[in-house]
Each structure stands twice: as C-alpha cells, then as structure tokens.
C-alpha cells in the first residue's frame, strides 16, 4: 500500500506537469491563452521540458511533446501529440531505513532503489480541444474551455481547463489564468491501477516590450489528490518564474523557467516525496521549458 500511494502521488504530480501544453502561439511557458489556430490552418509544435534537482543526488526528467494543431473553425481548435520522456535519477530522495544513503525514486523510476536509474520511454498520445467562448482581443475578458484526453502506457487521463485572458495596452499586455482539473488512472508496472485527481491554478502576465518579443512571469499553485473525486489531499506546491518569447511570421520560440520556493507540503505517508518544505515526485527545484512552433 505504501508503494501504491507513493506511485499514485508520483503519477499525480506528473499529471500536473504534463497538462501544460499551449494553444496556438505560446507566449507563456505553461499557461494556455486563447490564441487559437485559424480555421483550416495547421501548426507544428515541439516542446522540451527539463525538470532538474530534488532533495539530493541527481534527478533529471526530460519530457518531449510533439504536437500538430488544426483550426476546425475560428473558435475551435484540435491538437494531437506524442509524449516521450527520459529519466536520469540517483539517490535523489532523502535517506530512509531501507536506503540509508538516499533513495533513487520519483517520477519515471519504475522501482525504488539506491542505484543509478536511466530510462527513455514513449509515454502515450493525447488529443485536446479548445473552444473559445469570447475573444480577449475584442471582449473585456476572453473565456475558453479546454479538454484533453491522454491514453498511454503510464496512465489514462482527462483534463479540463477554464481559460481566462484579458489584454491591455493595444493588446501588448496579456494577463491570463487557467483553472485546471484532471482525473487519471495511473498504470503501475505490476499491472495495478490507481485513481488520482488534481487541481491547479496557473496565472501570469506577458508584455510585448519590442516587436517580435514578449517577456513576463507566470506562477502555478498545484494540488494533487488521491481518488477520482479529490478524496485525499496528497500534495501542494508553488512554482514561479519568468518567460520570454520571440516570434516571426514563419516560426516562434518560447523559453521559460519555474522555480519551486519553499512552502510546499505532502500529506501522503511516504515522506520521501517532500523534504525541505518542497514537493518532489516529478517536481523539482527548477523546471525549464523550450517550445518551438511553425504555422503552416
């Protein structure tokens, strides 16, 4: 049971990490805005996220997502993507009775131990849809609904978001927030499954400080739960950091960094997932992301 909860909490953390691709041109690292693909147009997007550093030792979690977006109509966009990852861990969790020199664990590590662990995997595929109810370019508040279904080797998941955005100063200043709710069925290596749920609030601002360039800040308030109906609160954490975005008519690129300050908390029995008032699992002290898009 201890390991089950441990795994479930880990997967829940990943759920939160993964559900953060961007619609249309992504000026934020992790926040969605309401910039959707134009009707009948396509965009290729490649994302690479790097999570680095946990309680000690080594923990590197790379995640690549390859996406194609399509504008069904002016206010509805569909996207499909392939998710892959690479985990490199070594004694990244605090020492325990079982592993007095530190435990090798966290998301992506199939079995806890104290040796080196490296694995690349194809995690699965996702399909997402975004419907824009109001447009922030012409309405005071842009509102959109987002749904994402993921089927994979490590989990099946459904994620829903309420997307909010307001533009100011000739649309150069963008304030955005996402309310995120998700449920997932975690798939363990022994064939068992486990229920997880999540609630996040993402918010941030970007400003176009020169032609082609924007920069800003974004934050995430993250909560994981055991059970499909948010029965047991297992984890809470904050993340905050800057972003920068450059775009031309044929391509765009965004880079962002999020830092996990102290103030996080775990309620799961396995305390290895928390130390120093920070949350681990798939989370780290620092998260970096680079996204690259090409409309066509």
């Amino acid at each position, binding site marked *: 049971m201890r390991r089950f909860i441990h795994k479930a909490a880990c997967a829940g953390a990943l759920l939160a990490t993964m559900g953060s691709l961007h619609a249309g041109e992504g000026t934020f690292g992790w926040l969605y805005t309401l910039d959707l693909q134009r009707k009948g147009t396509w965009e290729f997007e*490649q994302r690479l996220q790097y999570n680095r550093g946990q309680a000690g030792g080594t923990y590197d979690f790379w995640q690549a997502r390859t996406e194609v977006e399509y504008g069904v109509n*002016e206010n509805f966009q569909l996207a499909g993507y392939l998710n892959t990852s*690479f985990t*490199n861990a070594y004694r990244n969790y605090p020492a325990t009775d079982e592993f007095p020199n530190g435990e090798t664990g966290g998301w992506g590590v199939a079995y806890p131990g104290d040796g080196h662990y*490296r694995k690349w995997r*194809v995690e699965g595929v996702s399909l997402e849809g975004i419907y824009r109810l109001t447009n922030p370019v012409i309405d005071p508040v842009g509102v959109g609904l987002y749904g994402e279904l993921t089927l994979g080797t490590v989990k099946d998941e459904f994620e829903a978001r309420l997307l909010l955005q307001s533009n100011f100063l*000739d*649309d150069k200043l963008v304030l955005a927030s996402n309310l995120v709710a998700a449920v997932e069925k975690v798939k363990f290596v022994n064939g068992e499954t486990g229920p997880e749920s999540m609630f996040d609030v993402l918010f941030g601002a970007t400003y176009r400080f020169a032609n082609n360039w924007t920069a800003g800040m974004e934050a995430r308030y993250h909560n994981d739960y055991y059970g499909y109906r948010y029965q047991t609160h297992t984890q809470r954490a904050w993340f905050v950091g800057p972003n920068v975005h450059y*775009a031309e*008519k044929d391509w765009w690129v965004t880079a962002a960094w999020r830092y996990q300050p102290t103030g996080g908390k775990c309620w799961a029995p396995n305390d290895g997932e928390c130390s120093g008032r920070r949350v681990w699992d798939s989370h780290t002290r620092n998260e970096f992301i680079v996204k690259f898009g090409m409309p066509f």
Partner: protein
Amino acid sequence: MQWKPAATLALIPVAAIIAPAIAHAKIYVSVEDTQKRLFPGEKLVQTPVALTEAQRERMRELSSVREPFRGERVWRTAKGDWFIVDEVVGKHEMVKYALAIHADGTIKGIEIMEYVESYGYEVGEASWRNQFVGKTGASTLKLNKDIQNISGATLSCKHLTDGVKRLMVMHDLVLKGLK
C-alpha cells in the same frame, strides 16, 4: 545527465523545410508608391503637424490606440486632400498603413503598406479596405459595428480600425483647421 532524443524530434527539420516554403509573402509598399495609388498624378507636399498633449490624449481616448503618432507623416494635395502614414500593433510586428482623406473630411481610401505576419493578409484586400471609404470623423469606426471583422485576423482588423479612428479624430481636431 543524458538525453536520448525521441524519434519524433526528427520532425523538426522536416517542418523547418516545409513551413517557410508555404508561408505567406510579406506586404511592402513604399510611401511614394502608396501615394501614387491613392492620389494618382497628384503632387503631395509634406505637412508635418505638432500635436499638443491634450490633442494626443483626446485621440487616445476616442480610439484607444496608445502607440505614439509621428506628426511628420502627413502630406497634403493642392486640392486640400490628406495623406497620412501611421502604424498600429500587429501580431508580431507593426502594421504600417496609409489613410487618404478628402478635403471634405470623408475617407478616400486606405492602403496597407507593410504587413509581415503569419495570417491575416486579407486586410490588404479591397473588399475589407473599402468599408472605410466615405466614413467621417463622426462615424463610429468600431470593429464589428460599422467595420466588419475578418475571421482569423481579428487583432489586425481591430488595430487598423482603431488606427483609422485615431487619424480621423486627428483630422477633426487639427488638420481640417489648417489653411
């Protein structure tokens, strides 16, 4: 640290080859060519205007455009018509356009001079630009009111419409009083 690139990453160079080949071309028209389009055969004389802060504030208030207007981009014909070059915020870069105003204060035409974006090139088509013809400073000049939007080019349509409104406000405040 070790990264084993996913096979899907190989799609990046493929997209890099394909996308530029199918991307839209730029619009770029010089001031001289735009003047010839809007005022064929006529001589225009540059007529710079110096706006007071109160006038700028009024233009901002009525149009919502905050980008500064450059007063040297104003020309006049012998008949008293006006030719004004302005810029508004586009998706990635500034959209440069020109507005022609008859001496009686009605819009003669609008031309897009520079447009370098992924989409929205329909703002350069006559069917959209002709909506402005005949409008005056008293016209609403508001997107989705008396100016129709182009789906997928909302930001450009909105900013160009607001930009034209600002120039018409400037015409009423400043230009029509000039002798």
